[in-house]
């Protein structure tokens, strides 16, 4: 069963096309990552999926509703730009977010107290948002996002602005919600988060889906990488190494040839290369991303990466 399905979504802002024919299918219970550099259109896709804005063309179906706002009580959404009323108390802010999604306010307050205590913020429950640190306010907003126990949780760049400890906590929370049966969609420009959390990803570049599928599939699009250091600098063994191999220091780095490791090894040994080290590595998501979205996009992501 699909939690979210989007078919051919297009979004124009005046003359610019922010999203250009995006189709996605997110199975229920999955942790789904939208991966791509800033400005690729991730936020616009998410806003269209949950119904803040309507697409210029295309259709989407969320938890069985053609109009996503009808499913609002079952959705939790953390926007990229966090926002709370500064004068509200932390517990009221959480309860308010729940009330917007149809949770009675008294029940919201009760759950808010419990959640805040669980996150060591019990002392802050009756303090106004204004007095909270940025990290605490983020946690409060995150709690408000899940207070009504949504079936679909949409998080826009949830890791940005969090320190390592809170990032790990958030990852744990995402896994816990998924185990409890919720579907989670999040966007990120940090490949590591997607790699650790997701079974499925969509790579977004320039408003289009460059890849959509399992993380392993993305990886298996690439051949394993061979890293080789030899004693001999030249010899007949060199013909076994592909022409496009790179030199990194005194290492050769190249994709494993079609024939697999055995012919390569045989050629190296027979040719007297004198193998010092040889490693055959499974490609990471980063390599897959480079090959899928292009080196330019990967470089753009690398620059934005705060870590």
């Amino acid at each position, binding site marked *: 069963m699909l939690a979210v399905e989007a078919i051919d979504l297009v979004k124009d802002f005046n003359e610019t096309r922010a999203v250009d024919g995006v189709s996605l299918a997110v199975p229920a219970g999955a942790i789904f990552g939208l991966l791509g550099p800033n400005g690729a259109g991730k936020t616009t896709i998410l806003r269209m999926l949950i119904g803040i804005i309507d*697409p210029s063309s295309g259709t989407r179906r969320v938890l069985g509703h053609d109009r996503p706002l009808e499913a609002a009580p079952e959705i939790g959404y953390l926007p990229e730009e966090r926002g709370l009323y500064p004068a509200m108390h932390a517990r009221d802010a959480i309860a308010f977010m729940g009330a917007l999604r149809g949770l009675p306010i008294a029940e919201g307050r009760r759950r808010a107290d419990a959640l805040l205590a669980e996150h060591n913020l019990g002392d802050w429950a009756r303090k106004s948002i204004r007095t909270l640190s940025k990290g605490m306010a983020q946690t409060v907003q995150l709690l408000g996002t899940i207070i009504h126990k949504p079936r679909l949780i949409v998080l826009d760049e949830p890791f940005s602005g969090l320190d390592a400890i809170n990032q790990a906590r958030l990852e744990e929370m995402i896994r816990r919600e998924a185990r409890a049966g919720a579907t989670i969609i999040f966007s990120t420009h940090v490949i590591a988060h997607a790699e650790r959390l997701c079974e499925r990803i969509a790579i977004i570049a320039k408003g289009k889906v460059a890849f959509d599928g399992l993380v392993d599939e993305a990886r298996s699009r690439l051949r394993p990488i061979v890293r080789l250091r030899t004693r001999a600098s030249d010899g007949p063994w060199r013909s076994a190494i592909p022409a496009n191999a790179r030199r990194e220091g005194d290492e050769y780095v190249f994709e494993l040839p079609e024939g697999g490791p055995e012919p390569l090894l045989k050629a190296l040994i027979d040719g007297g290369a004198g193998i010092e080290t040889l490693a055959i590595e499974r490609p990471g998501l980063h390599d897959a991303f480079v090959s899928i979205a292009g080196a330019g996009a990967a470089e753009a992501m690398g620059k934005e990466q705060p870590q």
Partner: protein
Amino acid sequence: MRRFIRSAFVIARRDFSATVLSKTFIFFLLGPLFPLLFGGVFAGIGTNVASQAKRPVVAVVAPKAEFARLSAARDRLADAVGEDPLIELVGFTPERDLAAQQKRLLATRQPPVRAVLSGGLDHPQLVGALASDPGTEGQLRLLIAEARAPQGEDSPELNVTNIAASSGTVARDRALTAQLAQVALFLLTLMLSTMVLSQLIEEKSNKVIEVIAAAIPIDAMFVGKLFAMLAASVLGLVVWISAGALLIQLIKHGGVATLPLPAVGWPAFLALGIIYFGMNYLLFGAAFLMIGAQASTAREVQTMSMPVTFGQVLIFGFASTAVGAPGSVKAIAASVFPLSSPMAMLARGAQDAAIWPHVVAIVWQGLWVALILRFGAQLFRRTVLKSGPRLPWWRFGRA
């Protein structure tokens, strides 16, 4: 529909408690009371100052008997038209050097003399700075004629029978009630307009709007915000009306009971006043919310509030044409045009006893509140959230 109302209620509850529980709300409540209070005090002082400062003083150089006749004539005139418009007369015994006395009197400051009358009642001569004040001259002419006329002959006694009210006074007083009610309504919405204009600034500047727009329809947010402000201002209204009634009770002899009775009667008129206040507020509020939602900073709201205020003044002017002639074409036009309708209809309530036009008007106004809100929400989604397909302008607001 139930979810819509519940969503609107969530927004309204947040807004209402954020407004009413803030310290600044005390000032909101006290604000309109200051002018009332000071108005009462200063109006008292003001009229005193005006009556003394404005009346021109004429020095009358004449024998005592002649001055007495002139003064008596002035008193009779005062009986007819009241003290305020009349000149002040001060008597001086003639001296030998009349020219010198005249000169001295014109220069004196205690009292400041506008002109000097001499030559008695038979050969009156007036000297003074009169170019800008033809009234003084005319009044003196009248006073002299009256003083010279023989008294007590040939004028039959006027027989006076007093009744409580005639159609003339009732119509006038009701028109006054109508006008006062309109002015009160106008001032109230004027005060609230800036508040409504800036209603969405908070959400937009601290990005809560994204959380709200993801959870509920924009229409529900608009309705919630509008009714929260309405509730807060009704709270204010109750305080202000009670304070106003108290003030009238204290100042005016006979208290509230002396106010002219409106055509539909007091209970119905007060009920209409509250309903039309609500409608007037909702109509303007919906329009202002729509306009204000387009602004993204407080500065933009401030810039916008000036033309908006002028628009309100214009509509108030339009509605005020309805006073005095409830059945005229202008009055009906003002009652039909949605934004001026509540003010015009309230004036009608003061002057015309029929109830059914009010029922029609309230339904009509409610329809327009809904229309404006709907359009405002569409506009907000389009222009602020940049939602939906691009449509040609003539299909705008239909999607």
